[in-house]
């Protein structure tokens, strides 16, 4: 641990203290910076979980309630099943499409990117309700089933665990797609070429070489999505409650929506989640310890050659189209339909004959929405930039095992388990006690976004860096480059696809974030989701859908432009 990571075998003598300090200082500083960002909310969380609801005395009651729930084991089992299945669906759907797009010669590649970006730009509330609308009792699926068969029942009951898995799985497919496509773009050509020259089929090459090389990235992503699903509130609550399926988060939701909210219960739950996450990350750490074995970007040319799928191309194309249907077309159609009907109604011919643009007129009549949209873009873009910059450095140190970098990965993963409302409460408290007057400004919202999305930034950066073999950095180091130069000239260009994908992801989900933005909103510091939520509680579902359609268009144009520009540049850089 005392040696510099560069060429550690060669050095046998013990270095002087100053040098050792210089070697360990950067990682310590980064750990402290991340700690300062992440730990204060944890402190608030721990305190809330141990204080009685009136805040008067210390108590373990919240933990007692958590563990004394007779349905705890059923809920826990439901939660694990749901999280695991939804994770598998996301990995399969997002992963296969990512591989097809990046490593084969299938047609319709742009469609896959478009689906991911547009669906990430669509606000959750309307995305999930669109799915419920399609699959609900009165929705087009069950209605046409009844019309065709004359039955009175349901073909598919969406208010069930399979329904939950389907919607959550589809919801997080774009995350997997964006992350894995960055990984696959950089997978090792040498080994694949060697395998294929030795006569291996495409299938064998993929399963025995490509997949195994991508394994640390996939495993990390799997654990990440699993944790995300485990702590998800919206889908389990919206879909589970009507049919009384209880998950771990169901009760927490109720305690958070009461007036006044019972935050102790939610905080105790978050603490429990934090322990689970620590355990899962420990196992992930053991996988990624052997990361160098999987590094696929080495000193030799790494430009991978796409597989020729032959007639299989069309099967691949069909998969991309199916993915687009699931992730994009169906929900968007439902949202579009809802934005055009005067009131929420079943999708049928009678509805089609009575469409109106009233909701769009209502949206455009509100001039202050422009200001809100601008606020949103500024906050989300700044938060994404800070989070990605910070995690790129943090991930570099963590993957290369700099001295004293052991805690970095754990620290950045902590915010993953904060329920939005708990983080919001912590931010209010911190902002009010801050020496500079930031309370009620966009700064606080931006800061909260950085904290909340740090883990996501880490996943993207980590997956990118793990693929780059350190020999490239060592070569630069031996040629006299300093570490900042190595970072800037060698590493950043190589991992830029991951970083751009991460930036885009954080930007898009930050722009539609709800619970924190609504809680921290102040006069002059409101984002567009505050307005959407406001209209939503008012029941102006049509207007919210119209806003959603417009917002999705704006986000799509903005991020596609950005994506193509940066992609073109990295393509040129890597083609050299």
């Amino acid at each position: 641990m005392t040696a510099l990571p560069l060429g550690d075998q060669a050095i046998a003598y013990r270095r002087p203290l100053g040098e050792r300090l210089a070697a360990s200082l950067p990682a310590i500083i980064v750990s402290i910076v991340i700690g300062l960002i992440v730990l204060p909310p944890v402190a608030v969380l721990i305190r809330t979980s141990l204080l009685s609801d009136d805040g008067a005395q210390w108590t373990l009651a919240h933990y007692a309630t958590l563990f004394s729930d007779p349905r705890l084991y059923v809920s826990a089992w439901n939660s694990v099943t749901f999280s695991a299945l939804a994770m598998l669906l996301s990995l399969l759907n997002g992963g296969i499409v990512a591989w097809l797009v990046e490593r084969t010669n299938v047609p319709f590649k742009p469609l896959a990117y478009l689906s991911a970006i547009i669906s990430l730009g669509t606000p959750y509330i309307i995305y999930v309700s669109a799915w419920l609308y399609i699959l609900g009792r009165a929705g087009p699926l069950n209605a046409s089933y009844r019309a065709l068969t004359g039955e009175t029942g349901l073909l598919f009951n969406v208010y069930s665990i399979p329904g939950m898995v389907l919607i959550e799985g589809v919801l997080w497919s774009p995350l997997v797609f964006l992350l894995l496509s960055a990984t696959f773009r950089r997978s090792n050509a040498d080994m694949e070429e060697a395998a294929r020259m030795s006569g291996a089929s495409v299938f064998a090459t993929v399963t025995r070489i490509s997949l195994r090389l991508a394994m640390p990235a996939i495993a990390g992503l799997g654990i990440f999505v699993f944790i995300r699903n485990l702590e998800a509130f919206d889908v389990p609550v919206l879909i589970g409650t009507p049919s009384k399926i209880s998950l771990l988060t169901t009760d927490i939701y109720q305690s958070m929506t009461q007036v006044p909210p019972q935050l102790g219960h939610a905080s105790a739950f978050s603490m429990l989640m934090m322990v689970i996450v620590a355990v899962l990350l420990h196992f992930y750490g053991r996988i990624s310890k052997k990361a160098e074995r999987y590094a696929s970007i080495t000193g030799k040319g790494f430009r991978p050659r796409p597989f020729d799928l032959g007639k299989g191309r069309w099967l691949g194309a069909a998969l991309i189209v199916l993915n687009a249907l699931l992730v994009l077309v169906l929900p968007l159609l439902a949202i579009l339909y809802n934005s055009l009907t005067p009131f929420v109604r079943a999708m049928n011919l009678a509805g089609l004959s009575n469409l109106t643009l009233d909701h769009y007129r209502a949206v455009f009549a509100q001039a202050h929405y422009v200001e809100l949209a601008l606020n949103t873009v500024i906050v989300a873009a700044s938060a994404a930039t800070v989070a990605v910059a910070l995690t790129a450095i943090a991930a570099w140190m963590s993957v290369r095992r700099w001295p004293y970098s052991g805690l970095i990965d754990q620290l950045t993963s902590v915010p993953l388990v904060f329920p939005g409302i708990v983080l919001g409460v912590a931010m209010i408290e911190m902002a009010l006690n801050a020496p500079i007057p930031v309370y009620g400004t966009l700064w606080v919202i931006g800061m909260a976004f950085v904290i909340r999305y740090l883990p996501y930034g880490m996943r993207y950066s980590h997956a990118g860096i793990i693929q780059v073999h350190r020999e490239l950095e060592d070569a630069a180091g031996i040629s006299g480059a300093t570490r900042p130069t190595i970072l800037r000239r060698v590493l950043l260009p190589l991992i830029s696809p991951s970083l751009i994908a991460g930036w885009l992801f954080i930007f898009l989900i930050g722009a539609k974030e709800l619970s924190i933005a609504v809680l921290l909103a102040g006069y002059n510091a409101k984002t567009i989701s505050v307005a959407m939520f406001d209209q939503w509680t008012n029941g102006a579902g049509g207007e919210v859908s119209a806003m959603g359609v417009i917002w999705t268009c704006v986000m799509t144009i903005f991020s596609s432009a950005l994506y193509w520009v940066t992609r073109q540049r990295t393509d040129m850089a890597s083609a050299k």
Partner: protein
Amino acid sequence: MKSLWTRLCGLLCAAFLAVAFLAAAPAHAVEQALIDAAKKEGKVVWYVSLVENQLARPLAAAFEKKYPGIQVQIVPGTATDLVIKLLGETKAGQIRGDVHHGGSSVWPLAKAGAIEKYMPEAAKAYPPELKDPNGLWVADALYYLVAAVNTELVPAGSEPKTYQDLLDPKWKGKIAWTTQMTQGGAAGFIGTVLQAMGQEKGMAFLKQLAAQKLVNVPSNQRVVLDQVIAGEYPLALATFNYHSDISAAKGAPVKWLKLEPVTGTLDTAFLLKGPNPNAGKLFLEFILSEDGQKVVANAGYLPAHPAVQAKVAAQKPEGGNYKALLLSPELVESDLQKWISVYNELFK
């Protein structure tokens, strides 16, 4: 003698006039003084759980028009959000809001010491059940929570007419309600039943109702009503009556029912210990005045001021000729947890 009488009368008249003048002048002076002081502050920060475009902005605009030079700064949010915010601000000793509008937030905020007691002049016109005798709160809008049916799925005449009708086996698994644990949601429905029927009969009824397997919709009242309109469920409990009217006017197949007594709830307005106390008082006076309440009525809400008519008169009990049971903030404070535990025990 006559002159004495005349003089006496004159004196009395003079005295009366003087008293009248003395009585009138300070009242007028206070108001002018309040306006002046409010103008000096120049703004009022309003924490408000009303829908911003629909009512909060129109009210603010009407106030700014009447008192130019005083800006209303709207901080929107759900009742829960605003309570969290204010509790945090109170704890840190820096309350940023001047006036608050919210339903059940009075008591948590009163306990935390965030409320500045103040009995507005305008509240004199309000009946005692719509204001706190100690000046903690005054009602600024009323709500009536009713059952609603999809008229395509439930033919006219076959809809339930009393609470007992809800127990008809044909409704099994077909009644939806919101899981909101407030006086406006499932908890309020349970509270109304217990208040109206008494503890014993009420619980017996609720147990039978639970056997009907109500569908818990984890969203607000409006979303539940939308699901009724879309045909997901034929019947819903605890929806706002004016929502049904608004949608029905656009052609939606929905109708609200008067199962008596209907749940009545109120939104409250009150003064916070904020940085602009005078502008706060002036704005509170305005919200509760006839002018302010007319803005409330024009936005489609039900005004609390007894002299201001609702836009659709039939939505208020007097106009619609139905009985309502008002769940006052005091009752909610003392009984809400009990209602929630009944929900958890029977319906969850």
